[in-house]
């Protein structure tokens, strides 16, 4: 009897229903969000929302031209911060916004110059946004990127996400940003993409690459932008390079050779001697030849040695380029030398920490590259060579 009463009492408590029940068709799923500066102390939040009814009609439904139907729509709202702007956007929607599938956050250049840490706070504090979402800084207004129609993917968000997973530039997730901001160097790097209205129609998309380089932040404020070429140098420094071909000009062979690194490791070895701070960047890499436009036979050890030497120099010059910008122009330690010094010289670091900004540009950087070309690909002599004895001519 008591059991029955208990069961009745408990079920009474539960009959109120489930408070946190959510149905998929009550949600407006955000696929990407863009934050721009709207005016003094105001931001403009734009979200790209997935339109669910357009999907899945393909099979039996009325055939519709795929180019005419839109899969996403963009909504904007102004507010003093993201939470405030979000409530304005919510007012325009019949469904509750859901951040759980938002994979891309874009920030406009202008707002990036003023600092984005306050806005990131919302994204890392709120339980819905994903830690693995990618961050991008957009040239001009970020909202324009959301409107671009992607050629291959369902939406810009999807396109940018795939782009990030290709690792051509430097993919930066929310969690990476948070960790970089808290690190000793307090410098952050985020990929920098082309202005949205330069990628509006097909022709422009074919002509322009979306990725322009890397935005370098000092703490949370945009300090400057590295070009694509300098970005490669930064990636080498950060041990994040994956698949970027290196093309070198070989004067001996009168032409270019391209090498794709398969493996690469970078070590930062700091040194403090007589109060002079220096760092040794030690790179070990190996790769395959993918293109040979010289007259050299790539099965000859001597020509491989030539290629290796020029690859070494090329990697060095890329790193020098990146470091020139980082040290002399932006004074932002995106290569995280600070952590290297902190780890090896904890005491010295504690003292030098407040003056790191002044110290960083003065650090001497030595670069040592050990590039090994392992395989020549499928052919030995250049494909276009008419000469039977490529080596003899040399």
């Amino acid at each position, binding site marked *: 009897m008591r059991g029955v009463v208990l069961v009745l009492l408990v079920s009474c408590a539960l009959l109120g229903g489930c*408070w946190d029940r959510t149905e998929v068709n009550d949600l407006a799923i955000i696929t990407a969000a863009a934050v721009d500066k709207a005016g003094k102390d105001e931001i403009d939040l734009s979200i790209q929302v997935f339109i669910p009814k357009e999907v899945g009609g393909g099979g039996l439904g009325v055939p519709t031209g795929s180019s005419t139907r839109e899969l996403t729509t963009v909504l904007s709202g102004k507010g003093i911060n993201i939470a405030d702007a979000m409530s304005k956007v919510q007012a325009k929607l019949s469904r509750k916004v859901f951040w759980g599938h938002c994979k891309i956050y874009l920030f406009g250049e202008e707002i990036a110059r003023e600092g984005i840490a306050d806005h990131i706070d919302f994204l890392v504090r709120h339980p819905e946004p994903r830690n693995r979402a990618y961050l991008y800084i957009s040239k001009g207004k970020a909202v324009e990127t959301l409107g671009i129609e992607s050629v291959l993917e369902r939406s810009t968000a999807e396109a940018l996400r795939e782009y990030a997973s290709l690792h051509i530039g430097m993919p930066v997730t929310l969690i990476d940003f948070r960790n970089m901001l808290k690190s000793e160097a307090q410098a952050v790097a985020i990929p920098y993409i082309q202005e949205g209205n330069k990628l509006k129609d097909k022709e422009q998309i074919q002509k322009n690459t979306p990725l322009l380089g890397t935005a370098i932040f000092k703490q949370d404020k945009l300090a400057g932008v590295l070009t694509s070429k300098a970005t490669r140098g930064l990636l080498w420094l950060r041990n994040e390079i994956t698949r970027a071909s290196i093309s070198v000009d070989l004067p001996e062979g009168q032409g270019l050779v391209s090498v794709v690194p398969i493996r690469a490791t970078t070590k930062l070895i700091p040194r403090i001697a007589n109060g002079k701070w220096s760092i040794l960047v030690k790179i070990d890499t190996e790769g395959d030849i993918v293109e040979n436009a010289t007259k050299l036979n790539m099965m000859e050890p001597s020509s491989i040695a030539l290629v290796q030497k020029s690859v070494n120099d090329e990697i060095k010059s890329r790193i020098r380029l990146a470091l020139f910008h980082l040290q002399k122009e932006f004074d932002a330690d995106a290569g995280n030398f600070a952590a290297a010094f902190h780890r090896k010289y*904890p005491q010295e670091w504690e003292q030098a920490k407040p003056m790191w900004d002044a110290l960083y540009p003065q650090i001497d950087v030595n670069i040592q590259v050990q590039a090994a070309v392992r395989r020549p690909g499928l052919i030995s002599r250049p494909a276009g060579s008419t000469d039977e004895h490529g080596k003899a001519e040399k």
Partner: protein
Amino acid sequence: MLETGKISALQMGMIIYPVLVSTAMLGGPNVMAQAARNDLWLTPFWSSLIGFLSVFIAIQLHKRFPGMTIIEQGKAIAGTVPSAIMGLLYLLVLLQVSGVIVREYADFIAIFLKETPLSVISSALIVVCAFAVKGGVEVLGRTAQVFFPMFIVPLLLMIGLVFPALDPGNLFPVLDRGLLPSIKGAITPLGWYSEVFLISYLLPVLANRPQGTKAAVWTVAGAMITMTIVNLVTLFLMGDALPNILFPIMDTARYVSIADFFENMESAVMAIWVIGAFIKVSMFYYATVLGTAQCLNLTCYQPLIWPIGFLIVLFSFWGIPSFAELGAITLIAIPAILAWSFCFWPGCLLLYAIVRGKRSKAKEVPSG
């Protein structure tokens, strides 16, 4: 004897392990990182020392007074009146700590179930735990045994999945500010490890008593190893950001992304946490109920279950207006209370018993 059931030493370990680890699963690395920074891997070692000490005290007390829980031992050592006062104080502590654990559980669940009232979350847990306690120690032991793999497998799986993203470089510089920060970081976990003293309630019901010591020591060692691994993984993943992240394990789970579709592992962390909290609260609940019955010389403890459950829910709200307040309490006050009641006070009893040469007069009831 109020409790007639028997459990094995292994089951005891499986009850106590989640008791030690489940709170640490939630905020542990964050709490330890605040003081110890990148030396937090050493912290579980320091704090586990009190765990071993508590095990030693519980075992020694049990050797002198076999078949008795700490409440009964108190009576035998200190006499009726002082032990009654101490016993009531002790039960108040158990009630308060249970309340805080329930609140931690409810507050964490409420991050995701925003609109569900807190009282419903905590009551639901207490109702389930009440059934477990009603079933007695055997049910407790078996549920712990059943849930143990569910507690440990998602954790190992998660660590495996984030493995490629770990950066061991975050460990350095090792101990650059000396040992002190890592010891400071051990203050809060001290409380968690001293909870191992709850074996005092389980030792009398062990079917294979000789294995009890070994099981208890291994449980503390296992909890220490688990915490060290968890600390290292979160440190390798988050580096200097760790002291700012309230639920590092959940953050780790959210980081998992395999082939772009195997994501959102936080439900696994929720599962770990719900199971861990269930076992932990059940154990504290059981200890409170049994202790009260023994303190008041009752002949059975079952009638106390619902009233005490109600009190635990009340204590989970009493004096804790917000999560920030809860954090402040669990940082210093609760560990101090725990260390006092689970290590210092039983230690004093043991010393007193040794000095006065007190032992159980009655011959030990043969077990099994």
